[in-house]
């Protein structure tokens, strides 16, 4: 039995550097396996839609006609099931997470028309002035990404 038993630890803490990570001033390095967000190598993707079918939260939308593959970072639970299921192994799990935002945007990847010379155009896009999210929130994941068009011109330009 004792009183002040914790004082020793406290003084040790007081006179040593705090354990606090200076985030966000200093960006954080994540371990290699950290599951952050999904990216798609559109050169390889065949838009088969398997990933979309497997995804437990329906975060992925594959639009064969529009040649786009989009993912809602605000629906994805980062389980990596899509990565595992993709027959072409074009999906990859990145360490950085989808940034918090005022709108539940989607990330749309466009299949290049020609065998693309450069890297695939990946654009994080969000609906520009966007109505109040509560209004359009009925089935956010299934909404074909509005920014698909918005992203398109950019993609087409190069």
């Amino acid at each position, binding site marked *: 039995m004792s009183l002040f038993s914790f004082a020793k630890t406290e003084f040790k803490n007081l006179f040593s550097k705090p354990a606090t990570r200076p985030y966000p001033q200093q960006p954080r390095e994540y371990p290699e396996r950290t599951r952050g967000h999904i990216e798609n190598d559109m050169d390889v993707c065949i838009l088969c839609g398997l990933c979309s079918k497997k995804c437990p*939260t329906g975060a992925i939308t594959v639009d064969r006609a529009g040649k786009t593959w989009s993912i809602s970072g605000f629906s994805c639970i980062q389980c990596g099931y899509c990565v595992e299921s993709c027959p072409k192994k074009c999906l990859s799990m990145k360490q950085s997470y989808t940034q918090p935002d005022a709108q539940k945007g989607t990330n749309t990847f466009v299949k290049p028309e020609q065998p693309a010379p450069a890297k695939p155009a990946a654009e994080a896009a969000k609906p520009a002035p966007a109505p109040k999210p509560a209004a359009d*929130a009925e089935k956010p994941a299934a909404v074909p990404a509005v920014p698909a068009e918005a992203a398109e011109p950019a993609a087409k330009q190069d």
Partner: protein
Amino acid sequence: MKMSKSPWLLHYDGSSCNGCDIEVLAATTPVYDVERFGVVNTGNPKHADIFLITGGVNDQNKEVVKQLYDQMPDPKVVVAIGICACDGGIFKECYNILGGADKVIPVDIYVPGCAARPEAIIDGVVKAVALLDQKREQMKAAESAEGGAEHD
């Protein structure tokens, strides 16, 4: 003086799996220490500026969520933490999940992740804090607009 220097939190667990909840708590602990930004985890809606809600809403807690929100003084912002709070997450097809927090209260910032990691929560709070200042300005404008008429 800016509102954004002293954001006080209210945390409520809608119907989360605890994952995001304990990450919210973790954000207050030494390694993340959101108190650096002046954050206090008040636990009382009437003292709070930022409502952190984790998990989706269901029929039993929607009134609770609404009530807590109503008891917060303006200006206030709502931050939905985790996929569940964003859109119901993996449980959105469950019979008892109405969807994300935005089904019952206006959500200002969505923090994705399952579970949302403390860094993301910090990012979310930092974004929310900026909104607080904006809302305060709007509030002032509104007040002065109706000011003369209302004063008795």
